[in-house]
């Protein structure tokens, strides 16, 4: 209930901002779907941020997206793979029948119906109106129920003390963290670090954008080429979609 009311309020406020935007600076909208959200303005449910991963362009052995994320958000690097957090990982998939193999990055899928949010006892796990799923680090008690519930193994517990976390990605011992879709960049009108890095390699296997905006590149691609969810049978409607899973 409260959640819904908040969404509606956010929505109305965003609507007002939009109206004001039209009057004062119509040019803002020419910037396209990833337009910056004014500081202090709540996320709007008019948007549904998402990622489209084209596995056919994703190169085996390339992990530019992983390193870029690690660099941007400052996780990992202690050399203890079992307990070090991993916000994004490259998974190599091989079909034992045909021998076909491909690889793809897996990160928080920013589900529309996120089990991690459903089970979190304190509400630290939350889904923003624009579809980005986050952990409020100051509210997380480290019960790890969300980790048990996430079908994609997208979350990590910080098992040790964190040395100088990035100011935009607060992390700390005893709390849970995961891909934020680079929310700090998105809110500033930029795209996530992984997408940028992937484009730089020339593979350009990742597209970021607003699934709710029919004119956006990501929405157009999903419309024309499809865009499958991992474990679609679970019906979680993730914001991260994949191309070329079953060819």
């Amino acid at each position: 209930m409260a959640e819904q009311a908040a969404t509606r309020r956010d929505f109305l406020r965003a609507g007002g901002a939009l109206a004001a935007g039209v009057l004062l600076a119509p040019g803002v909208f020419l910037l396209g779907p990833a337009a910056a959200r004014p500081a202090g303005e709540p996320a709007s449910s008019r948007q549904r941020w998402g990622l489209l991963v084209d596995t056919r362009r994703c190169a085996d052995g390339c992990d530019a997206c992983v390193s870029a994320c690690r660099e941007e958000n400052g996780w990992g690097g202690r050399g203890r793979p079992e307990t070090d957090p991993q916000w994004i990982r490259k998974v190599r998939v091989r079909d034992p029948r045909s021998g076909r193999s491909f690889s793809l990055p897996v990160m928080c899928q920013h589900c529309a119906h996120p089990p991690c949010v459903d089970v979190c006892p304190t509400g630290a796990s939350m889904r923003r109106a624009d579809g980005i799923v986050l952990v409020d680090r100051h509210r997380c008690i480290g019960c790890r129920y969300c980790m048990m519930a996430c079908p994609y193994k997208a979350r990590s517990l910080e098992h040790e003390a964190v040395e100088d976390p990035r100011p935009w990605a607060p992390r700390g011992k005893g709390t849970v963290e995961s891909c934020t879709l680079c929310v700090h960049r998105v809110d500033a009108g930029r795209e996530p670090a992984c997408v940028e890095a992937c484009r730089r390699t020339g593979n350009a296997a990742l597209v970021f954008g607003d699934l709710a905006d029919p004119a956006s590149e990501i929405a157009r691609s999903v419309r024309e080429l499809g865009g499958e969810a991992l474990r679609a049978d679970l019906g979680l409607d993730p914001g991260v979609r994949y191309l070329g899973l079953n060819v």
Partner: protein
Amino acid sequence: MKEPRLQAIEGRSGGFYALAALLGALVAAGLWAAWQMEHHGHAITGMTNQIVWGLPHVFAVFLIVTASGALNVASVASVFGRKAYKPLAPLSAVLAIACLVGGLAVLVLDLGRPDRLVVAMTRYNFRSIFAWNIYLYTGFLAIAAVYLWLMLERRMNRYSRVAGTVAFLWRLILTTGTGSIFGFLVARQAYDAAIMAPLFIAMSLAFGTALFLLVLIGAFRATGRPLGDHLLHRLKNLLGVFVAVVLYFTAVQHLTNLYAAEHHGVERYILVEGGAVTALFWVGQVLVGGLVPLGLVYHPTLGRQRGAIALAGLAVLLGGLAQIYVIIIGGQSYPLILFPGMEVSSSFFDGVIHTYRPTGVELLLGLSGLGITGLITLLALRVLAILPAALGDEQAPAPAAGATEAVRA
């Protein structure tokens, strides 16, 4: 029939102090372990980002499940009007409270941020079954405490039946809630089953009755109070039934999973290829926790011996720990399946069986839950009049007489 007098234990013997010291040491060790975990982080445990819940959860869930079953004797007395069990009802309520407090303490001390417990108490997400459980548990403690008071305060006795009924219903919901913690984890192959809730209720009845039998036999023996056989034999028969029901639900759980092709992998893992998990399933859960106690309690001669009955109770508890280990650890060590039918690999252990090597700290933390439970029970026995001064066969009538008694009551 004269109602047996309830009397606190003396608590001056060397044995009493030795036991109290042992339990106290367990609790202290657990607190030390929790402090270490808080200080160094969970890196010093065997838990990882793959095995997210470990030994502390095995002990905590075990105690919480046992708590609701330990109240069973009291329910039988109050709700179903079995007078014979009435003198034992207060002890049963105390055990329930002690188990729940022990289990919850472990759960809380294992949190990544135990210092934020206040957050957990004040900010609820009402969609979380975990958050409901916080209510269910605190409610259970309150109800059991009121119920205990109504039973012990003579003038209030007549209300105890109402409180007993409330406690009975509450604890059914509570165990369903605990079972649902797992039942709601759709992502995990091993947990995605509605059978979890009834299975947990059956487990709670078996474990709770087993613990009650052990404490009963132990307390009467240690204090030299006379204990007749009739009641004991009825309780051990009850235990036998509960153990059989747990075995039955376990069989249903695995057979239905075998029926669904998507669960074949995890079933093969638990039943055949899982190494320690498989061994704990067959030897711990099925043999020690099921077949051995069944053989003991229904054996024509052994089943009449007190030592054998106590052994059966102990076996049920050990088997119960094994069962919860198989559910919690086994369910996590089998990898999540993102790409059905495919071979996968990654830097994050996709597609591989996860190994769990618990360290000393988490074992100590888990054991301290048992310590807390034991210590609370021991202190309650000493300060409250909850243990009958004598429970000979004349106080606890033979089954036939008991039945008429119940009808008259």
